[in-house]
């Protein structure tokens, strides 16, 4: 069965590149342009993994993360967090909130693919 | 249980298959070359088998054998990659 990945990112170009790279890996990709939409989509579409930008309009990546982790339904959703800040305290905060993987922009496409694969347990085979 | 041991043995053989296929892939051209070398190939000149010149049967037979071996090797090695 095709695994579905939701991208929550407000930069359309980054969305497009991620969509291209992940689609090529065989994932079904959808996206949200702000935090509120991301939250709504996660609840409606129940994706298998979430690629979450930290700086989102309306609802920040932290807030989305907090909401998701507080909800019984989405507590276990694998989340890869992207940030353009990359300072270590950001990373720490995200890890404390229970993010599964953390990457700093700009990233290598292969790293994103590898991380998503790891989150979805596809890396072994 | 005897069958369990037998199955383990078989699994081990199966795990070894890609390695053996790789070895075969490496030596295949050398086997072919050796079989085409003068002293050996010269042995088949002159006689016939069932009306067909033996040298023809030998060369084309060898050729076909190499192709089949390559087919097998390719089939084996393609799987795990």
């Amino acid at each position: 069965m095709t695994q579905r990945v939701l991208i929550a990112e407000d930069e359309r170009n980054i969305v497009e590149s991620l969509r291209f790279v992940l689609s090529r890996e065989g994932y079904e990709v959808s996206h949200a342009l702000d935090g509120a939409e991301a939250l709504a989509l996660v609840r409606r579409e129940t994706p298998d993994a979430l690629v979450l930008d930290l700086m989102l309009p309306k609802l920040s990546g932290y807030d989305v993360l907090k909401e998701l982790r507080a909800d019984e339904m989405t507590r276990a959703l694998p989340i890869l967090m992207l940030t353009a800040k990359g300072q270590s305290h950001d990373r720490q905060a995200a890890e404390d909130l229970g993010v599964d993987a953390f990457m700093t922009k700009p990233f290598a496409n292969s790293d994103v693919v590898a991380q998503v694969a790891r989150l979805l347990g596809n890396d072994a085979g | 249980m005897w069958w369990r041991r037998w199955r383990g043995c078989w699994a081990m053989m199966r795990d070894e298959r890609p390695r053996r296929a790789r070895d075969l892939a490496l030596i295949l051209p050398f086997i072919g070359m050796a079989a085409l070398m003068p002293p050996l190939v010269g042995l088949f000149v002159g006689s016939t088998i069932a009306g067909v010149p033996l040298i023809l049967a030998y060369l084309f037979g060898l050729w076909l054998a190499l192709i089949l071996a390559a087919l097998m090797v390719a089939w084996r090695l393609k799987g795990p990659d």
Partner: protein
Amino acid sequence: MDIRQLALLAAIGFAGLLFLIAFLCDREGRPRWLTSPIVYTLSISIYCTSWTFYGAVGSAARNGLEYLTIYLGPTLVFVGFWALLRKILRIAKRDSITSIADFISSRYGKSDSVAAVVTVLALLAAAPYIALQIKAIAGSFQVLGSAPEDLTGVAAASPDPVVAFWITAGLALFTILFGTRTIDINERHFGVVAAIAVEALVKLVALVAVGALAIWGVADGPADLFARMEASAVPLDAPFGMRWVGLILLSGAAIICLPRQFQVAIVENEREGHLFTAAWLFPLYLLVMSLFVLPIAVMGLDVLPSGSNPDMFVLTMPIAAGRTDIALLAFLGGFSSGTSMVIVSCIALSTMISNHLVMPLALRAPGMRLQGGGDVRRFLLLSRRFSICFILLLGFVYLRTGATGEGLASIGLIAFAGATQVLPALLGALYWEGANRRGAVVGLAAGGIVWAYTLFLPNILSGVAWWDAVAMAGPFGLDWLRPGALFGLETGDALMHALFWSLAFNALGLVVGSLSRLPTPIERVQAALFVGVFREGADEGTLRGGDASADQLFDLAQRVMGADRAYDIFRNYARARGQVTEFPLVDDAFIGHLERRMAASVGAASARAMILSVTGSETISLDELVQIADETARLMTYTTEITKKSDEIERAATQLKAANERLRSLDRQKDEFLSQVSHELRTPMTSIRSFTEILSGTPDLAPDEREHFIEIIHAESIRLTGLLDEILDMSVVESGDMERALEPVNPEIALGQAIDACLGLLRTGDVRLEVARVEGAVTVEGNLARLSQVFINILSNAIKYNTSPAPVITIESRVEGAEYVVVIGDNGAGVPAGEAQSIFEKFSRGRSAGAHTGAGLGLSISHAIVTRSGGTLRLLPSAGGARFEVRLPMLASEAEPLA
């Protein structure tokens, strides 16, 4: 209509069909069937040229089973694909190799000279081979027109020069139309591959049809055939001696070294997996072709009048048997084999000529200036078209001067021997790390010269008086230098003699040349990358040596990835394993982990080389590593210039480079400012990096997709540059070092410019604009461009951050006493009370602004500009929305409107 006219029509129709196939395949963006391994295998079958189609029968009739060697050699190479072809393919795909010259030169340090030598050699070797195709097509055409009883004399010697000329011209046109319509970044031609796959089928079907006719139509089934074979003049007991072995080796080498074979098997290859099919299917194709050659030779000798040219049995036998239909099919088969060889050879050679001879010269020529990518592209296309004409002309000239009275097969073998001179350099490239550029050049040159002297020149010049004197007595009377018996080696077999000496000198040159100096760092790296292409990850379990300390490894890692990231990797690894120290215990698992992380930045092979340099298993010093990094950077620039000719990419790359340069110079300052701006820079950089990786890592992108991605890179580069401009502006304005002096200006003009500039933004957001402007002219002291920058900034903020469902922007300008006042307001969310104080500080874009573009430097810059003009910029207290006020002192004498 006589058969010759019919054949001409059929040939033209067939060519049209092929062109249609190629055109459709290129346009449709590669239909599915085109990527099948069967098409790949069929395209490799261009190995079977007219030489096979017509010449193999001639060869069988003259020399018995010797013709089999030409197909047994490639068979051995393909069934042994695992060791050699797969390695070449893996490297070629990794490095986006465009030709065999490119492959060899990139192994020997991306050397121009190596590439040029290979190209010249390939060009010389191609001439006889192409002459052979022209001769075969011309000959077949002449045979078709002859009555069965006249068949003996026709086409035994040189073909009619007029027919040959028109065939050459037709081939040139055909090839130019086929091969140079576009320039693909990876030098791949999907349409051509589809067309030659069809041609491969046609020639197979045609030869099998003629063979079947020989067995069941002319002879009385297989039993009768073998009976006649016993009695026939076909020598089945041909000596299986040195020549037999030599020819197998020669043809085995040719299947890799011929530029056109490299083109179809390596450059045009879609997927490594296709090789796994070709490994057995291509030998099978050769077997079927060879199987039907012998019956045609036997029956041709048996039933056709003695003195008939055996090279034309494939055509003359059906004619003699009264089967015009099969004769026509055979003609098309021969036409297919000839044209497909010529097309692919010319494409491969013209690529080599334009990339390795013309371009390097053009780039160096002082008078030559190629501006931008479009020029380069046009120039390349033109040089390729000229190259194709030149190559075919060379073939035609060879046909007219060379000793082409010989059989087709012997001409082909001269070409094989020439192409094979590349073999030592190729094998050295793949299996001997010590081989270097000097060795390659010396070996190639020595082998090439000996080949030309002992085989190529004798073939062209025989009959010319002075040459015959040299051939008889040796140059300057030196008997031991006679081209036919070098150093007194009399073999009676010119081919084996030439092959022996040329390869001996070639290999010797490679070894001695390579050992005569140490490899440069770049050669060493390329050697490791080529020879050890399968090494990465293959020996995961082996010991990497525990000599390295964590400090050393950290030092290396932070050079590659930056200190922060390296530190993270080290600390997280240690923490994940419950180690309390800052740096983890250095063991194989950690080194493997680190290598993989580094590989993401610098590529697997380089990462490994670097790790090895620290762990002590390899001896590359740190100095050398730095040198390597520099050279690699230079190489990458070079590669971008030469091979990625697409002008869009070039443009994007230049912009990226410029942006990078500025980024680097700023990076050196390393102040607080930059660490804050980093976030803003990373966003466009992310897109640029990601799409660049997609472009370079996805060879099969559709053209429109590629263009779209390049546009994004372009736009993001501009955004990045704009950002950097903003930052520079900031520092320029702040240090008071403005380029332009203050002068009396009318600020209304600046305001008007700003409104015009923002109209574009307005249209997209459906914003209503309410403007109330001052009457007449006012004059303040300032700078027009700077002032309009201030207004644009405030206006665009008002538009961009307006979250109201019905956005309204008000612009009001008036004169208040001695001051000119502009108030720009909106009905958006306004600025939160807490932020009103800090809004003019650097990078305080306001949290409520969310993730809109721009670094948030604009207001700060505006503030500085207005202050410099002696005015004020402030945020007015307001009930809803933000209201900015600009106040500028007017010049006293001109406060009144001008008459």
